[in-house]
Structure formats: structure tokens, C-alpha cells
């Protein structure tokens, strides 16, 4: 039984770490801040969620219902999208350049029209 749990925990940890590392690679490799946000916002979060599940399982197997870990997972879920949004939006509003491969930018319109409105 313990062995079984250990395997599950280990697998969860390995998956989690894998995602985390990939996300880190992504953050280094990807070309603009918006793309990197993808790596950070998803992979890192997911990776850590896996690890935390492993932790939860580990303690659950010892008969300890560690709700704080669950809460932490929930929290990561809830906050990751907002964090991504806030970072990318602030980047955009501060004029951080999009990657030159970028094919489309609908957001530009909104800010331009807004500016022209203000100019009038």
C-alpha cells in the first residue's frame, strides 16, 4: 500500500516537475512577453498543482487531510488567469512590443480609437 502511494506520489511529482521545467524553458525560449505568459500561466501552474496533489496524497495516505494544500491548489487555479491578464495587459499598455511574427492585433484598435476620442 505504502509502495503504491509512493509510486503515485512520485509520478505526480515527476509530471509536475516536468511541466514546471518546460514552463521555465518556455519563459526563456519564447520570443515575446505575451508568449511567455502562456508558458508561465499554464505550465508552471499546472506543474505545481500536480506537485501539490502529490503532497496532498502523501499526507492523506498518513491519515492527514491537509486542507491548506487543497486551498493552495484552488488558489493557484483562481489566480493564474488574472495574473496572466494583468501582466500581459500592463505589458501591452506600456507598449511592450509584440513578436515580429505576430499576425494580428485587434487590441490596437481599441486603444487607438480611445486615444483619438480623447484628442477630440
Amino acid at each position, binding site marked *: 500500500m505504502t509502495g503504491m502511494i509512493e509510486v503515485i506520489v512520485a509520478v505526480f511529482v515527476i509530471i509536475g516537475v516536468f511541466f514546471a521545467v518546460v514552463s521555465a524553458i518556455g519563459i526563456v525560449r519564447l520570443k515575446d512577453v505575451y508568449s511567455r505568459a502562456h508558458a508561465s500561466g499554464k505550465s508552471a501552474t499546472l506543474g505545481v498543482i500536480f506537485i501539490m496533489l502529490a503532497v496532498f496524497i502523501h499526507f492523506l495516505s498518513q491519515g492527514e487531510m491537509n486542507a491548506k494544500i487543497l*486551498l493552495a491548489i484552488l*488558489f493557484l487555479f*483562481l*489566480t493564474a488567469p488574472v495574473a496572466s*491578464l*494583468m501582466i500581459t495587459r500592463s505589458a501591452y499598455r506600456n507598449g511592450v512590443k509584440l513578436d515580429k511574427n505576430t499576425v494580428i492585433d485587434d487590441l490596437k484598435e481599441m486603444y487607438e480609437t*480611445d486615444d483619438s476620442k480623447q484628442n477630440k
Partner: protein
Amino acid sequence: MMKKPNNMMLQTLARLIILVVLSFSIYLMLAGHNSPGGGFIGGLMTASAILILYLSFGLNPIKKVIRFDYIKIIGIGLLLPGITGLVSIFFGFSYLKQFFGYFHIPLIGEVELTTALPFDLGVYFVVLASALTIILTIAEDDK
């Protein structure tokens, strides 16, 4: 000046999150005597929760809701431990002598009451108010 950002999503989320954070912060404050935490940590967590509110809703809406003068809370927070300590003098003990006891309350059972609590509560208030005051003061500063 750029257009105002649309904080709709942030606000929606904040409503949810602060409940968790606030309860957690109070938990940290109260549980400090027996597990990691305490007034200082709890106070900063509460401050974080309130900071989330400020960030999401802006200054004035929050002002209408939280009408405390943080500076006065600091004063009160300081008075709490100061006066808790004095109490022991009146009972003929040394300053800051703490008392604790386990009381049996019907329905609820064994409860531990300790003078360390008002003490830590003072810490909590000071830290909470301090953190908010600093951030708000800087934020309020023009240019």
C-alpha cells in the same frame, strides 16, 4: 493619460479571493500560539487581502466601506499590548505577565484562553494598519 483599464474580471475574482485570504489571515493570527503564524504574519496577510480590494476597486470605493483611520488603529494596536502588560501589575505580578487557562464552556467544551491573545491582537492591528498605511501613503503621493 491612457484610458482606464477595465477591472471587471479582477473585481469579480477579488470578491471571492478575499474571503479566503481574510479567513486564512485570521486563522494565522489566532493559531500562532500553537502552529506557525501569529499577529505579525496574520496582520500582513489581512493587509494583503485588503490590498487586493484596493487594487481591484480603487481607493475611494474602499474608503466608503472601510472607514477606519489606520493611524488610529496603530495607536490602538500599540495600546493593546501596553495595557495587557499593565493588567498584571494590578494583580501584583511583574509587567507583561501572561496568563492562560483552560475553561470548560458548556456546549463548546474545553477552551484555552490566554492573555497572549490580546497581546498578539495588538501586534496584528499594528502590522495590518502599518502595512496599509505605508502602501496607501505612497500610493496617494502625487508625482
